[in-house]
């Protein structure tokens, strides 16, 4: 399913301080959309609102399916520069991705979630012998790959990257770019916060976020 997003007069305040004012714009389905702007301009606040972590003070966010009709909030993949994953989390890479894919009630892992988790972990370049290792025992680069695998596992219709490129080494960045290209080719929507709109191999749409959101022309 292709999913686009429409922000309708969205304003967000943090601790009573307005960060984002009356944002109205559309993220087109199946495209790469970049959000650029100065530090403190509200880029991360915008994606956290898109993800449902923050609630808008006013306005709403509509998700648009085929033919532009509204659909329920879809599952989203997310990778940020700074993860809140505990450094000593007692979960293996496979557990973390599978539990995130299928976090519903229950004690057992769902077999399908485990299969998808393994496929995603191998897709980001983790080797078979690393899948069962607790994430706390992985190197920083491997952990970031696990989080990247979690973001793309199960083919979420929307992939949201918050300056994810800054936390990756050269090889990891190449993997991220390859995955973004593959996701867009498969019809999925990719949204990323960046200081360089070309970071993911070029954007189809660029928005500047500095308290307000304005669309910028895309270089041909």
């Amino acid at each position, binding site marked *: 399913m292709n999913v686009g997003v429409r922000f309708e007069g969205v304003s967000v305040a943090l601790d009573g301080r307005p960060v984002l004012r009356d944002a109205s714009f559309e993220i087109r389905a199946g495209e790469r959309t970049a959000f650029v702007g100065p530090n403190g301009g509200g880029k991360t606040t915008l994606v956290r609102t898109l993800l*449902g972590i923050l609630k808008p003070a006013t306005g709403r966010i509509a998700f648009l399916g085929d033919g532009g009709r509204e659909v329920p909030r879809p599952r989203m993949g997310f990778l*940020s520069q700074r993860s809140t994953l505990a450094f000593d989390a*007692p*979960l293996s890479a496979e557990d973390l991705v599978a539990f*995130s894919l299928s*976090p519903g009630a229950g004690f057992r892992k769902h077999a399908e979630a485990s299969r998808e988790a393994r496929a995603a972990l191998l897709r980001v370049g983790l080797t078979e012998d690393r899948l069962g290792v*607790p994430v706390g025992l992985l190197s920083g680069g491997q952990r970031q790959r696990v989080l990247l695998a979690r973001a793309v596992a199960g083919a979420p219709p929307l992939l949201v990257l918050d300056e994810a490129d800054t936390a990756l080494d050269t090889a990891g960045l190449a993997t991220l770019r390859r995955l973004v290209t593959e996701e867009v080719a498969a019809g999925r929507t990719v949204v990323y916060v960046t200081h360089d709109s070309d970071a993911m191999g070029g954007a189809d749409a660029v928005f500047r976020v500095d308290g307000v959101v304005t669309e910028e022309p895309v270089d041909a």
Partner: protein
Amino acid sequence: MIEFLSYPFFQRALLAGALAALLCGALSFFVVLRRLAFVGSGVAHAAFGGVAVATLFGVPPLAGGLVAALLVAGAAARAEGSSVTEDSAVGVFTVAAMALGVVALGFVKTNVDLFGLMFGNILTVAPADLAVLGVATAAVLAALAAFFRPLLLASVDEEGARVAGVNTTAMRLLVLVLVGVAVVVALKVVGILLVSALLVLPGAAARTLAARWPALLAGSIAVALVSVVGGLLLSVALDIAPGASIILVGAALFVTSLAAGRARRG
């Protein structure tokens, strides 16, 4: 020692200890992962105030303890994202509840087993206490099993869990409420001062040796069981207070596991 095992009161003590170990051992897994040691201690101390006020008004003490424990657990949950930090909220409510308890006990005309309240009296566990402990243990374990995956995910990666669709606020409140219930029903076994230790020691000891959750959870329950049963047997052998004996065995297991973990890592 063998003779003791044939006494019904000792059999009840062993069964109550095993149930409390199951309850606290399983919860300790989450208490340690979420770094809730201070909250657990605060909830236990607040229960003292609730028990004292309930005694003053002729209400079942456990009910009073449960209300106080849940109030502090709720305060800790409400502190999330507010200007009052969790440790401040728990600290304030804990000392206020304890002070209220001391004032209430001043007006109580009957004898109150303060020593039993503070340090537990597992050898006086009655069949009715066992029933309460059994039902509470079953209910807490069922809740943990039912919400295990979202609880675990929210405990180790709050933002990742929220993006995955987990209601992390509800999960936090659930853990705190379960801790409140465990504290109150385990009071009889180890007392107010020591019940928080039983919520921390098993998970902390297992954490030094286990890197993955299945071993950590099993280890936490095993350490709790060995602490309670071992402590109880040791208290008979050495004629010492069972509550303190249970915690000392748990502390010894923690120190041993810490040394073993360090030796293993070289």
